[in-house]
């Protein structure tokens, strides 16, 4: 293994190791949260709700929940990890190493991405045991979910780098991220909304992410799948390029 490979592996291992050391909080809690959503919205309320576009309500919400779990965990892991390391000053150890801005950015991104992946896979396995969850278009589902995970991992890195206190991360998550995800149609079909909310939903980027993932699982989509995938790819690439520029300039990382 080359020195660069050892370096990247170690930088990434540190990020994965961090959340694995506190897995009750980083894996257990989000899993419980997702199951509570499935229980309340799926099992309890779902039995009183008609099928949506011919799909049982509980099955309809699960793809959105899986996407939400990946997104929120990818985001919050990276934002918290970077901010904590900035607070402790421990991030200086990585910053004063020979690691390039690209290596640092990818390694910091990977932590949240992996945590989101673990929670999403466990949710998928458990949901598959509870209900009959189809996977209709795996070739759309996998890139879709990976892009969503990577996009929110990047967003977490961005907020973590910019944040100066833990409030900054909490505010971004509570007042921006969660409303966008909830109003993006995790728990309902946007077509059921009255105007102007139905139109407004189309301006929410998360709507297209949910539509994409739902299509991958259920074969049903309210949005144009190809355009959604293209949009998500472009948005992820743009955010990654933006973060890489910040890392190269040392923005809020190097004095």
């Amino acid at each position: 293994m080359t020195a660069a490979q050892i370096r990247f592996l170690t930088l990434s291992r540190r990020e994965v190791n961090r959340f694995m050391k506190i897995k009750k909080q980083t894996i257990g809690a989000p899993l419980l949260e997702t199951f509570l959503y499935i229980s309340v919205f799926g099992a309890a309320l779902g039995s009183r709700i008609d099928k949506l576009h011919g799909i049982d309500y509980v099955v309809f919400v699960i793809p959105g929940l899986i996407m939400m779990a990946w997104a929120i965990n990818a985001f919050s892991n990276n934002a918290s990890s970077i901010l904590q390391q900035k607070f402790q000053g421990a991030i200086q150890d990585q910053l004063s190493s020979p690691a390039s801005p690209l290596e640092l950015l990818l390694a910091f991104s990977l932590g949240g991405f992996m945590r989101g992946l673990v929670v999403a896979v466990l949710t998928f396995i458990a949901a598959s045991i509870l209900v009959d969850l189809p996977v209709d278009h795996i070739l759309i589902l996998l890139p879709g979910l990976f892009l969503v995970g990577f996009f929110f991992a990047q967003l977490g890195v961005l907020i973590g780098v910019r944040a100066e206190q833990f409030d900054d991360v909490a505010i971004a998550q509570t007042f921006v991220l969660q409303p966008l995800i909830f109003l993006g149609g995790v728990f309902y079909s946007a077509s059921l909304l009255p105007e102007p909310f139905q139109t407004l939903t189309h301006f929410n980027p998360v709507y297209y992410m949910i539509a994409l993932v739902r299509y991958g699982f259920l074969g049903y989509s309210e949005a144009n799948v190809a355009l959604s995938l293209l949009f998500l790819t472009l948005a992820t690439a743009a955010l990654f390029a933006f973060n890489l520029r910040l890392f190269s300039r040392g923005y809020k990382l190097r004095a």
Partner: protein
Amino acid sequence: MSDRALHIENLGKRYPTGVEALRDVSLDVEGGEFFGLLGPNGAGKSTLIHCATGLAQPTSGTIRVFGHDAIGDYGEARQLVGLAPQEINLDWFLTVEETLDYHAGYFGMPKRERRERARELIETFSLTEKRDERTRTLSGGMKRRLVLARALMHKPRLLILDEPTAGVDIELRLELWHYVRRINDEGTTILLTTHYIEEAEQLCDKIAFINEGQIVAQGSSAELSATYGVTGLEDAYLTLVGRKELSRSVIQELAS
């Protein structure tokens, strides 16, 4: 590879707040030297060190570490530098052994070599019993020892110690002195910043005074005393900071 461990030329650093921390600083540390950097709080010592290790970005000037441009060729330059910073900056999530292992990994050291090196340093710095403990459970002295061990993990040719003995007890201070003197004898170049005049006198071959972001004088302890027309390094320092009245000789005179 140049034998000059650190070559700093016309280095300037202005923070976004407008504070000019370094002004046209030029400094050379020869390979194998034990070099001291003395100056009052806020003089620019840590900023200079941060510029040399990539933690701060200079606004102007050049820095070379054994001939490698610390900005353009930062990978090679940083590989050769070990930094023990002034503030304890250990990762709370890691154990003592992991702290050392991860650090060496960041510098590309293979696993087997990392294990051996970590074992050796854990023993040297008397951290064996704490090797599996998380860093936040360590005492202040242990944390200080671990920070130094971490800086040495990747076998740097230039070791930068930013006030390594600030706030440590006398035994640990002397222990650290013995250790850094030994590794200097073995060939590692050392750049030390300190507030303790005695520390600089005991350890350093050459000392530079830094004040208000500028190197104002440099030389051996005797040369600096001669420059300021006083009898010792402490008086030279007090003259530099404009507090000659605090000189022990003045106080002794007053007492008698």
